[in-house]
């Protein structure tokens, strides 16, 4: 049987995390499932979780009164959803809406923050991983902003 710890260990995000820290992280993890069109979180809600998507697809959206729900990015298998749990004041700034039925591992941000405060090495390990994630998302967002496929005028 696949245990949560084993699933986390095999995920790229936790690659090379020591078994000791993996056990600590697993203590804050749980399996979750979301149905199509369900909102996992909404703008302004307290950010107490992040998710490792195992299956399914999620749209990160913003609502604009004149344009409705605008999808800025979609995430799917292997992706990480949510980093607001890590950065004060810990509120989500996008809506996360389920496009296809999604299975994920939810990680309790409050629980992880507490463990990171107690053990700064764990905090550093997690921050290294989130920095890399943020760098990647920033890079792809910048490319999106370049509007590369638009016709040059």
């Amino acid at each position, binding site marked *: 049987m696949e245990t949560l710890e084993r699933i986390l260990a095999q995920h790229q995000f936790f690659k090379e995390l020591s078994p000791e820290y993996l056990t600590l992280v697993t203590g804050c993890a749980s399996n979750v499932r979301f149905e199509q069109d369900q909102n996992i979180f909404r703008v302004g809600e307290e950010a107490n979780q992040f998710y490792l998507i195992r299956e399914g697809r999620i*749209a990160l959206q913003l609502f604009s009164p004149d344009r409705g729900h605008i999808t800025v*990015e979609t995430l*799917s298998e292997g992706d990480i959803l949510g980093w607001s749990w890590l950065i004060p004041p810990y509120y989500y700034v996008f809506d996360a809406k389920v496009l296809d039925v999604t299975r994920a591992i939810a990680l309790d941000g409050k629980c992880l923050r507490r463990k990171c405060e107690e053990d700064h090495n764990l905090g550093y390990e997690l921050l290294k991983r989130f920095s890399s994630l943020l760098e990647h998302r920033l890079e792809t967002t910048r490319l999106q902003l370049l509007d590369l*496929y638009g016709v040059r005028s």
Partner: protein
Amino acid sequence: MLPRPFVIKKVRRETEDTFTVELDPREGRSRFDFLPGQFNMLYVYGVGEVPISISGDPAGSTLVHTTRAVGTVTKAMAKLRRGDVIGVRGPFGTSWPVAEARNKDVVFVAGGIGLPPLRPALYEILSHRESYGKVVLLYGTRTPSDILFKDELEQWRARFDLEVFITVDRASSGWRGNVGVVTTLIQKAGFDSRNTLAMIVGPEVMMRFTALEFMKRGVNDNSIYLSMERNMKCGIGLCGHCQFGPVFICKDGPVFRYPQIKDLMVKWEI
């Protein structure tokens, strides 16, 4: 060097500003031999000549080109109808390494109007499908309405031996597909990085970041190919219009192995 007259057999509008023309030679044998990735110089009589990559099946009976109506010549071309005549010189340039890709996983990455130059290679590989490992097409466009070859993409998606992922940079309401740049799809492709060949076409910045993403995932840079575009005029490396450092895109390209040009791609002086 003289253009051969070809008759337009069919014109198909792909998107608001993109169209496909099917051509038959006015005289002589009908078959037009070319290698996937090559381009022709298309001449709209009285207007001018432009390089356009071939987008049809190398085994097909007609010559097929797909382009965007963006300049004087292509805008004039977009107004041509069935029965009109167009001049063709070619085929020119290097081709996609479909033979080298045998027994490997093959990942095609197209950005925007980059899908047409890749399509002949995809046809070729699909017609000898058993000779290749996993075959994946990653396609990114600006918006959902810019997606080319929609019907064909649906057919490809229905195949069990080809994986197709599409993403858009800007979603319209009602779009339930992927949103994000095409490089984000690479991690979804699930290829064997030690035995993968990548073929990339799109804007240069997109191709460069795509190549980097493949390398980040362990693909050797010698197994990454991309197709370049410059102001090709003569098609045979004489006029110098498409000179790119020490190479001519029309003769030494348009298809290059990434290490051949990676240093040139970041030199804005050339």
